[in-house]
């Protein structure tokens, strides 16, 4: 085998925790960045034999941009056998942590794709989310990134934020159209257990309002020339995130760093969270394992595949549990033929469709 071609590295440091965030995050403790990086590289070395030439690298967090270009460069150089010539190297960037020079430095260190966590351009929504960046900083970061020579710039946005009116959504849409990045991820805000938003009793918006917002986002971005290639992801043709597509195509991937998840040859494991323990483990972090049998894999492939715009490749996915329901889906205009794919309407209700086709026992 050629080995794993997708690498994820989790870089957990953040200045503070945002109100909606449930990721493995380490607030403060920036003085441990080098020690942490040493441990990450040690883990990378320990797992080296699993890797092939890498097609994609994703530096996620936390706030990877807090690691500074020097460390990012060191990390990328530590990868063996190394990156393919046209490898995609994405990095998450928080607007308030970067300026022109910093972005150029990341680019020079080998980052090809800047993913900027904007969330919204509306001050009151940024406040509601406890974000560190102002609307101006968000816009500036995107513009600087576009100027810094990345192959692709992506921005993350949210809908369903408490207090977000249809007018607020339109305002964000207008800025996105104006900035016109290659890629947009537009997620619905989830109120996750344990977050500040949950603690203060934030309720999700009502079903109809959230459906309208979602459909509006899809309509507008398609209209602006983006491909709605995944449930929450939009790209100008050719600028899809190859790393994420790796996940959605159920490829193997190696994840390193605190809380990182890997899936390699039917085994999935998750590193423990906690930076101190991770550093102490020096490349041998404690892990929890999950064995995935072929049946589980097949269910996951279907779950992931229906998120995508591309045709449904039954030969790759395996038979669905209820092929008899294809007809029902066709009758109701949720499935297209030649090639077999969810229709546009079908994609809006993909979760219902999935339950009709597959058993999740």
């Amino acid at each position, binding site marked *: 085998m050629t080995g794993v071609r997708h690498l*994820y590295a989790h870089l957990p440091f953040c200045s503070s925790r945002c109100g909606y965030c449930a990721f493995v995050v380490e607030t403060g403790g920036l003085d441990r960045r080098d020690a942490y990086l040493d441990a990450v590289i040690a883990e990378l070395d320990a797992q080296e034999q699993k890797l092939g030439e890498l097609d994609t690298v994703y530096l996620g967090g936390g706030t990877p941009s807090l690691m500074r270009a020097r460390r990012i460069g060191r990390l990328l150089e530590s990868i063996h056998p190394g990156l393919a010539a046209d490898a995609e190297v994405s990095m998450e960037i928080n607007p308030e942590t970067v300026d022109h020079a910093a972005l150029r430095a990341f680019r020079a260190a080998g980052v090809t794709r800047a993913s900027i966590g904007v969330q919204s351009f509306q001050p009151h929504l940024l406040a509601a989310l406890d974000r560190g960046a102002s609307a101006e900083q968000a816009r500036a970061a995107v513009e600087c990134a576009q100027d810094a020579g990345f192959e692709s710039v992506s921005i993350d946005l949210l809908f369903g934020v408490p207090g977000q009116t249809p007018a607020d959504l339109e305002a964000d849409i207008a800025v996105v159209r104006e900035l016109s990045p290659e890629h947009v991820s537009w997620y619905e805000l989830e109120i996750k257990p344990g977050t500040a938003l949950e603690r203060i009793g934030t309720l999700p918006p009502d079903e109809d309002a959230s459906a309208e917002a979602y459909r509006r986002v899809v309509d507008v971005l398609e209209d602006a020339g983006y491909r709605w290639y995944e449930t929450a992801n939009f790209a100008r043709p050719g600028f899809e995130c190859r790393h994420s597509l790796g996940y959605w195509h159920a490829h193997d991937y190696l994840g390193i760093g605190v809380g990182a998840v890997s899936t390699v040859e039917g085994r999935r494991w998750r590193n423990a969270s906690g930076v101190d323990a991770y550093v102490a483990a020096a490349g041998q972090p404690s892990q929890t394992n999950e064995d995935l049998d072929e049946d589980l894999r097949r269910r996951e492939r279907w779950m992931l595949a229906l998120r995508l715009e591309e045709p449904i490749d039954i030969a790759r996915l395996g038979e669905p549990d209820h092929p008899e329901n294809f007809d029902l889906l066709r009758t109701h205009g949720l499935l297209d033929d030649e090639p077999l794919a969810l229709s546009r309407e079908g994609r809006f209700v993909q979760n219902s469709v999935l339950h009709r086709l597959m058993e999740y026992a």
Partner: protein
Amino acid sequence: MNSVNQEHIRNFCIIAHIDHGKSTLADRILQLTNTVDEREMREQVLDSMDLERERGITIKAQAVRVLYTAYDGQQYQLNLIDTPGHVDFSYEVSRSLAACEGALLVVDASQGIEAQTLANTYLALEADLELIPVLNKIDLPAAEPELHARAIAELVGEDPASVLKISAKTGVGIEEVLESIVTFVPPPTGDAEAPTRALIFDSVYDQYRGVVVFVRVVDGALDGKVNLRAMQTGLTFDAEELGVMTPEMVPTGSLKTGESGYIVTGLKDLGELRVGDTLTLSSNQAEEALPGYREVKPMVFCGLFPVDGDDYPALRDALEKLSLNDASLVWEPETSQALGFGFRCGFLGLLHMDIVRERLEREYDLDLLATTPNVQYQVTTTRGDMKPVTSPGDLPAPTEIEFIEEPYVRCTILVPKDYVGAVMGLCQDRRGVYVGMEAIEQRQQISYDLPLAEVVLDFFDQLKSRTRGYASLDYELAGFRESPLVKLDVLLAGEPVDALSMIVHRELAYARGKHLVERLRETIPRQMFEVPIQAAIGGKIIARETVKAKRKDVLAKCYGGDVSRKRKLLERQKEGKKKRMKHVGSVEVPQEAFLAVLEFGDDGNSDK
């Protein structure tokens, strides 16, 4: 336990509206006669099943023998025969009464006479019992003993002064009750020399001993392990053990004329020996059975389906086990297109249905769906034959029907005068035929003949809510009557759903159909496509609603670290659906939808 001579036997029962204190009084009597010593005294020893205790209802009558030395210095054998307290079991009540010579008529001094007080009183008078009126709960601050004493006295035709005033809770007046039993209840009059006749007034199934019947020896005696013959069914069997309940089973080897006790039969099927039948000796048979035998027929039917189809065998096992103890429960396999494999079950009444269902769910841990309860219709076809129909699906095509008859019941409702209008409105809505009205104490007794089908829907709930809980209801079967009935079908996404069909009066069909589709629209969640809901009669759509399609159903973001979690979320969604939803054709229908057909509420009939 020593026998006494026939002159010193008293067979009696306690009749009371539910909660008026029958069980408490029974406990007191046992305590006072030292049958149960204080230490052993469980609360309400006569109710054996936990569920019944919780609901405060006694389903199975039992007989308890106590010895009491009266003020006259003589020892008496008192046989207390417990009676079921609910209208569903009125036949069983009547058999219990037939085993007695007297009855304590217990009325709550704070409540006064209720519908079951009346119903049971009439039954007791019909059975020629000596009635001893007792006002209970005089310790309650809200008690109005004088007021209610006058009313009871009038009801039984006695002097108000003769009404005993007691508190089963504090023990006040219990001895007077025992003395009255000794003084006023006549001893049994059976002929000791005649061929043996014993009335079966109850039966239970014991896991270890098989069927145990409770009998009252009317003539002759039972002695030893004799061979017995049930006169109505012809069944013969050996008495394995004879004895009395104290309330523990105590073998006595014999039961004499006038005594009550139990017989262990060794039979395995409760259905083989019927309550109301007469036992005689195979070797010396009586000529005529005791009067009053009636086969108990189920009056209310519904389909019971496991929510999870895999539970079908477990449901069958559970029904088999319940039937061991409940001969009046009948069931047969039924297949529904919508609900899969299940059973059509017949019950004595609504309460019986509720109890069975609850026991199945609780004791056997089953999740069940019940279809709309039905009564048994009698359909006369154009070919002239008569066909009983208990399921809407079995109704012949309209062209093959000459006419349909449905069972009616005579309902006796007792309410404070202020609510007479509300009750009459309800009865009128439910196709009631006014029979009469009579003042009883401060209240009105209203009689209506109503189609049983209307009573088994939500009549009782409606009655309670329209009278703020003040109304009490009793009913008895009042024959079959011809009615213009039609089958109302429900279609989901164009497909008829058999489990939602019902048989309704033609004039109510439109309102019912409309109400039903509205309720279904509220209960059925949005699906990935639009779901039309239609009500139809004979192919003609009479009402329509639509459940709109979902506009969005996606799992939010999903990245590499998230796959297992998202998959588990799907598993939880699926699990939740499996619990709550039934696939009916292409539509996912929550269980509550099947209950929707049960509730017609205030407007189900009136907005014609």
